[in-house]
């Protein structure tokens, strides 16, 4: 893992009310007369530190809970073995074949259309997008995904963005197989990056690099350009958490998607863990391994809810708007809300948050000092 960099000031702008969320219990009430004991007693601060070491609400969001082994007795174990044989020996090759066939057809057709039809051919975009939707359906079939969509299908209107909670890159594929969204995503290395570069153009996707400091401004600009673009009527899909979370919690929604002045359509996705844990722990698995894991499971079962489009209310800040939408999605998908910024996976928290505690403590010590 690359070393954690100290966050730039930009990160502070996104933080809603983390100061209130952090306990200020360690700032104990100092009695009237300042004693040696009061200054020596650092037990509340130590307790907080130990509490964080033992369990903390941020790391919990990224923990993939291993499921209980149910195959431990004499009857179930052979059944489970049979299941393994079936899954790896029959289902998996079958799915790989489907996927391979689909990819060949897709790349052939896509290259044909891309190179043969002229740049400004109206149909080119349409066909390419239909092809993308098709390949996503192929992917979805290759995991035997059972997806229940609730709510009205997204319509191709301008001036709207879609936001969804993020569990894995397959979120995008699951949503894409119904609608040709443009998406804004982290640029990945390897074959994923290759696909991002070449196919992304047709969909109008936006790639960013979260480790680049100035990247946020560029991305904000690109977002605005997309919304205001007239020719691109395919809606933009944004994952405001900025990182994959384990589908039990939602982390803070970044305000970027909520200050564009257009309608925000929330989409909630919840995976059924009985069949497979769809959380992609990018620190533990490469995307290829993640796909293999999905393809060797029985099925991917999930629910997708398209919720009512939301507009920013008068007097509401983008951060409050983001929180409101986060609440909607969390309630709909049965996830617990946590106010931590997902980027804390990659960056350290701003030292300003420590300063608040220090200031309170210092002020109370100084106050007692004056009183003597």
């Amino acid at each position, binding site marked *: 893992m690359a070393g954690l960099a100290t966050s730039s000031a930009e990160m502070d702008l996104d933080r809603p009310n983390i100061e209130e969320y952090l306990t200020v219990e360690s700032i104990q009430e100092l009695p009237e007369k300042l*004693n040696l004991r009061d200054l020596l007693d650092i037990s509340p*601060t130590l307790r907080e530190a130990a509490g*964080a*070491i033992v369990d903390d609400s941020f*790391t919990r969001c990224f923990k993939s809970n291993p499921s209980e082994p149910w195959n431990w007795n004499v009857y179930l174990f052979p059944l489970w073995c049979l299941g393994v044989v079936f899954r790896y020996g029959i289902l998996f090759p079958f799915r790989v074949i489907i996927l391979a066939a689909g990819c060949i057809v897709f790349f052939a057709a896509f290259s044909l259309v891309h190179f043969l039809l002229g740049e400004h051919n109206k149909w080119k975009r349409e066909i390419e997008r239909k092809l993308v939707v098709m390949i996503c359906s192929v992917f979805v079939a290759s995991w035997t995904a059972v997806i229940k969509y609730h709510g009205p299908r997204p319509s191709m209107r301008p001036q709207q963005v879609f936001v969804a909670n993020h569990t894995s890159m397959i979120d995008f594929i699951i949503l894409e197989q119904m609608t040709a969204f443009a998406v804004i995503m982290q640029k990945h290395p390897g074959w994923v990056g290759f696909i991002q570069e070449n196919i992304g153009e047709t969909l109008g996707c936006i790639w960013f690099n979260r480790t680049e400091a100035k990247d946020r401004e560029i991305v904000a600009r690109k977002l605005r350009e997309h919304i205001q673009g007239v020719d691109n009527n395919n809606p933009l899909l944004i994952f405001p958490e900025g990182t994959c979370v384990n589908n039990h919690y939602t982390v803070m929604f970044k305000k970027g998607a909520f200050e564009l002045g257009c309608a925000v359509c929330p989409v909630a996705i919840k995976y059924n863990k009985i069949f497979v844990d769809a959380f992609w722990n990018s620190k533990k698995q490469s995307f290829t391994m993640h796909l293999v894991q999905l393809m060797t499971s029985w099925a991917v079962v999930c629910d997708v809810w398209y919720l009512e489009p939301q507009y920013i209310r008068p007097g509401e800040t983008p951060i409050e708007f983001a929180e409101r939408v986060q609440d909607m999605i969390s309630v709909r998908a049965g996830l617990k809300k946590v106010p931590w910024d997902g980027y804390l996976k990659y960056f350290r928290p701003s030292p300003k948050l420590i300063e608040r505690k220090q200031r309170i403590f210092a002020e109370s010590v100084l106050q007692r000092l004056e009183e003597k």
Partner: protein
Amino acid sequence: MGNASSMLTQYDIEEVQEHCHYLFSQQEIVALYNRFCQLDRSAKGFISSEEFLSIPEFSLNPLSQRLLKMVDGLNFKEFVAFLSAFSPLATVPQKIELIFKVYDVDGKGRVTFKDLMEVLGDLTGSFMSEEQREKVLSRVLEEAGYSRDSPLLLEDFMKVLCKPGMTMEVEVPVD
């Protein structure tokens, strides 16, 4: 105990339990082991400073740097021993001993005025000047009958801090 990613055996659990003076139950030790493995991402057998600092709540603690000197590179047995002072079963003297060690971070057995200044500096940051801290520490030390020139020992800490109902406990979440 070797590699952190290996499973804990009953023998290991008992060894760790003995080392921490039976302040944690066996279930708590298993839970702590899961936590240890979760934090030790590269399965080295110890948790590095970087990995501790990736816990936002820890990184935001004013004493995090001082504590890192104590916890960086601990193997699981020592990790549990460190946390044992926070068990509800720990006695007040055991807790005071940990507080003393946090002050006496280089293990000299004495807490000098400089150590006191450093900890107060961590807790107050830039909101108190060096002089103000010196002044307040000298004053409270004198009033308690100590001099700033002679370092404090563990017995002094015991005398000053021992009060019933000092709670410094964390709860280990047991699934």
